């Protein structure tokens, strides 16, 4: 059964000027992600995977080429439109977690909803649900400093889920975690995938990539291989 594409990239390039040198971080990439894809983007450092992630996550725009996210042309959007897309369509999970240390779990998780203009009662309701979903229903009022690394990353996943995004974009989500905790986090991603979410991981660890159903390897700004398992 062919599923609909959620991301379409056509001859997408990103150039950086380093002094008088022009570096091609991404070189005419064509890439599709379908609804409910569970993919890992891999590659050595300098392969362009961070650049690709920034563009997928609408944190950056391509120098040339097309990028369509959930039916919207993103490549030419301005800052505030991109902010809206990030808010609605993308749930970020970072290697360094990036929770605000002064806010408790609930307040951290509901942050995207504030920018979406959701009323306080509904925010709290949904944030609680999301925390329960990642198994932290009993840690709602804890601050990040009172949690373990695995728990912090689960709060971050709850925050990524809160606004029902089209894709969950995780940048080295297990990079700062030990093996056992990493596997715990990957189990959550597995469950989210089974529940119908589209998930894109950036990683350089083979055993993490093995949890996913599709592995895209980058080298020198080009796609080296794209395999489904």
């Amino acid at each position: 059964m062919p599923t609909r594409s959620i991301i379409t990239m056509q001859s997408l390039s990103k150039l950086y000027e380093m002094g008088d040198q022009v570096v091609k971080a991404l070189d005419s990439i064509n890439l599709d992600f379908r609804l409910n894809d569970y993919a890992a983007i891999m590659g050595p450092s300098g392969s362009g995977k961070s650049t690709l992630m920034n563009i997928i996550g609408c944190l950056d725009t391509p120098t040339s080429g097309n990028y369509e996210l959930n039916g919207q042309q993103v490549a030419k959007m301005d800052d505030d439109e991109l902010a809206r897309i990030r808010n609605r369509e993308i749930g970020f999970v970072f290697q360094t977690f990036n929770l605000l240390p002064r806010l408790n779990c609930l307040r951290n998780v509901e942050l995207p909803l504030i920018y979406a203009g959701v009323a306080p009662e509904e925010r709290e309701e949904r944030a609680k649900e999301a925390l329960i979903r990642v198994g932290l229903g009993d840690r709602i009022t804890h601050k990040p400093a009172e949690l373990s690394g695995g728990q912090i990353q689960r709060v971050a996943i709850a925050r990524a889920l809160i606004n029902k995004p089209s894709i969950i974009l995780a940048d080295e989500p297990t990079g700062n975690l030990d093996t056992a905790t990493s596997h715990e986090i990957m189990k959550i991603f597995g469950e989210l995938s089974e529940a119908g979410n589209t998930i894109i991981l950036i990683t350089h660890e083979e055993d993490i990539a093995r949890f996913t159903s599709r592995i895209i390897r980058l080298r020198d700004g080009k796609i080296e291989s794209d395999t489904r398992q």
Partner: protein
Amino acid sequence: MNLNYRQFRYETGESMKMALFQIRANKTRSFLTALGVIIGIVAITMMGTAINGIDLGFEKSLAMIGYDVIYVQKSSWSTMGQWWKYRNRPDIRTDYAVQINRTIADTPRSELVVAVPQMSTFQASARYRDRLLQQVFSLGTNQDYPLTASGDLSEGRFFTPQESAAGDMVCVIGDDIATGLFPHEPSIGKAIRLKNSNIRVIGVFRKQGKFLGLFSFDNQLVMPLGAFEKIYGKSPFVSIRIKIRDQKRSSQANEEITGLMRRIRRLSPSQENDFAVNEQMAFKSQLDPIKNGIAVAGIFITGMSLFVGAIGIMNITFVSVKERTREIGLRKALGARRRTILLQFLIESVMICMIGGLIGLVTSVSITFAIRFIMPDFPVRFSPMLVLASLAVSVITGVVSGLAPAVTASKLDPATSLRYE
């Protein structure tokens, strides 16, 4: 539109909470930042209080000489100190009052009501048994004096036309003399010794305070002219006090009395006045430049301290933006727009300034009360306008000093900010 409004409301609420978090988390830093504004606001409000106070003190003092009294004297108040101009003028004589009153009675629509002569000592002393008061101000006048002076009596009575005409040895004394000579006993009926004569106290003036902080009306000793001349002989310090009908038409009154005096002095049209007509406006015109000077100096000092304060806040906000680059990146990644970030940092600097402004206000109100408590005579007045003005100034300072860092923050690139270490 509706969604935009909701977003704005929730984001602003969030920003305010974050600003409070931030201020509470960095108490020392926030306080030092706010210090510039605190000093600025204290400077503004104290300056305003001082200027208000000058006005207040001035009003009080003017009420003492009376708004509706003009004085015919040898020298003018507005060019005091130029004694050489007045030295050769003939002295004012007490019987001018009689002539003036006669003319007033003959003029149907006169602006003048009554003229009262006044002869005074430069300095005198008064004695009662073993108590001696220096710096008493003796004044000889007639029964109409109360019409031209603001002092009510707290005890006793003023002297009658008969006593005045006869030059009876009776007097009405100021509050300071009463408490100085008769601290534990009633003063009415007692005999005070002035030079070599005794004079009986028949009344006491209510306490009035000092005129422009210089000259006290409470050490006056008022007696009939005849009595004054018996004690001190003729004194050259003579004024004619003239009550006018309407203080709004004091210039017409001034013209009228000037014409009258010229006739009394028999001056030809080509001759200059050889007397002066003084009214309280003369003081006002002397005081205004002083007040303006204080205001200009005050605005300058205040402006400097606020400027320094604003630079401090700008600096700290820049540091804060730098420190929280990752947070800004994260917020942007989660959907914060430029204006959200801009507003967050603006709210933070405005809040620091507002808190600084409030602390400044509380400080200067306390200082005002302390001054009032320690020196009750010192004129200070705090006005609600000052409160509004200083809060407005705090907010403006906050916006001005927070704008540049806030714009910088709003323009940060989310991808690079997220990786900022």
